[in-house]
């Protein structure tokens, strides 16, 4: 079972309002095979805020998260994390972002502990052995730490993936449907994590359909509809004016 206090990196401690914006996007657009998945998204998300990305399937939530995680590049426009351009300064952005996607990114033939130790090596986590054991304990998997991840259920795999996030010192956490596939304990674990990140001032951007569950942790909400920002509400998130007229989006080269 998870411990009562989950360990998250203290890197982001500080008054949220005294830091530069965690995320700024300007006319952000992404095409897949010529079809727009994200169109002209211009947003500012303040540091230390927890913001929900809402919208129907295909609204562009995952695309926005993947661009901010540097998994895919924008087709047009810009996005910056902590003032760093996700396209041109991707290497630096990766050190500041943790991303929980639909896929867990785990190796089936390795145990939960081995997967997290590998992640700790890649993240340069100090005191890796202790941090891995602590993360396994925090996500409630200490008893199964030596079992192959390939034998785990989807919910247990997600717990390991959440444990991997705890090994880093991200200032921006991106969560794509974090409650999916989890049992009651797992749902509580995500709630605990959201509370812990909020407490230490980590910015969280979460795409989810479980709005009622998320509500107590949220500062703001962004509603996407077919790739376009349909609404913004709450604290810590601002819709920015577009810098180019619709229909004349600049190329990536021109934007840079």
């Amino acid at each position: 079972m998870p411990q009562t206090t989950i360990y998250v990196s203290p890197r982001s401690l500080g008054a949220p309002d005294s830091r530069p914006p965690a995320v700024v996007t300007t006319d952000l657009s992404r095409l897949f095979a010529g079809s727009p998945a994200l169109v002209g998204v211009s947003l500012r998300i303040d540091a230390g805020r927890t913001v929900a990305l809402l919208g129907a399937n295909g609204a562009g939530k995952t695309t926005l998260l993947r661009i901010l995680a540097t998994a895919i590049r924008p087709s047009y426009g810009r996005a910056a994390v902590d003032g760093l351009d996700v396209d041109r300064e991707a290497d630096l952005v990766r050190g500041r972002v943790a991303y929980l996607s639909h896929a867990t990114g785990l190796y089936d033939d390795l145990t939960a502990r081995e997967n997290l130790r590998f992640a700790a090596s890649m993240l340069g986590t100090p005191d890796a052995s202790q941090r891995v054991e602590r993360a396994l304990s925090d996500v409630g998997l200490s008893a199964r730490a030596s079992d192959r991840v390939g034998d785990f259920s989807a919910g247990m795999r997600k717990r390991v993936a959440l444990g991997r996030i705890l090994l880093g010192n991200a200032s921006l956490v991106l969560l794509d449907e974090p409650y999916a596939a989890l049992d009651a304990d797992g749902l509580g674990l995500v709630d605990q994590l959201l509370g812990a990140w909020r407490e230490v001032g980590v910015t969280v951007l979460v795409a989810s359909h479980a709005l009622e569950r998320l509500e107590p942790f949220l500062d703001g909400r962004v509603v996407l509809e077919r790739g376009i920002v349909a609404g913004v509400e709450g604290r810590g998130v601002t819709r920015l004016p577009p810098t180019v007229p619709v229909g004349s989006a600049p190329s990536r080269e021109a934007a840079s």
Partner: protein
Amino acid sequence: MSALRAEARVALAIARKDALAELRGRHATVSTLFFAAVVLLLFGFALGPDAARLAAAAPGLLWLAVMFAGILAVNRLHLLETDDGALEQLALYPVARRAIYAGKALAGFGAMLLLGLLVLGAVGVLFAVDIAAAWPPLLATVILGALGVAAVGTFYAGVTVRLRAREVMLPLLMLPVLAPLLLGAVKATSAALAGDPFGELAAWLQLMVAFDVVMIVAGLATYGFLLDD
């Protein structure tokens, strides 16, 4: 210097992870060794029972078996990264791209070296070739050959890992590029087994060293682009 040390640490972590996954799953070991054995036996049957003929063909058969089976090995090492989005996760870690290439190539080198030594031993037994008498140059040839196949294979496995037809595309891309290495390895092995009567061994080994250096540098410089969107 500390950046280089950090990259070396990342490369070792990736190689260790690949080795651990392979030891646990044994996906590549069984298929690769079985395939190499089948290649050697089939060529042996095709050439007939003439011992002199088999011994003369041994260097070529050795390296054909190593390269064909090596393609399976490097392909499998990259298939590990298709587990539930592992390749994307690997690309999202805040590490230098060349360190990822180095790690995958190091794991490939380990697999190829083991394969090369086992196939060399099998060739010695099956084709009655005295490998013990020429072990230092043969070992150098196997090391350089393994390094070259791993360097090329890691890059092209990265090219094809997202393709549906990767099993077909990987040998089509790799084998033409490996031709100079194959030539050098076969000639160096022949010279080593014959006691280097014409003093050509060093030249063939130098060709293999040059090939390895070029391919490793090219892989380090370009592999990162394969991980990008």
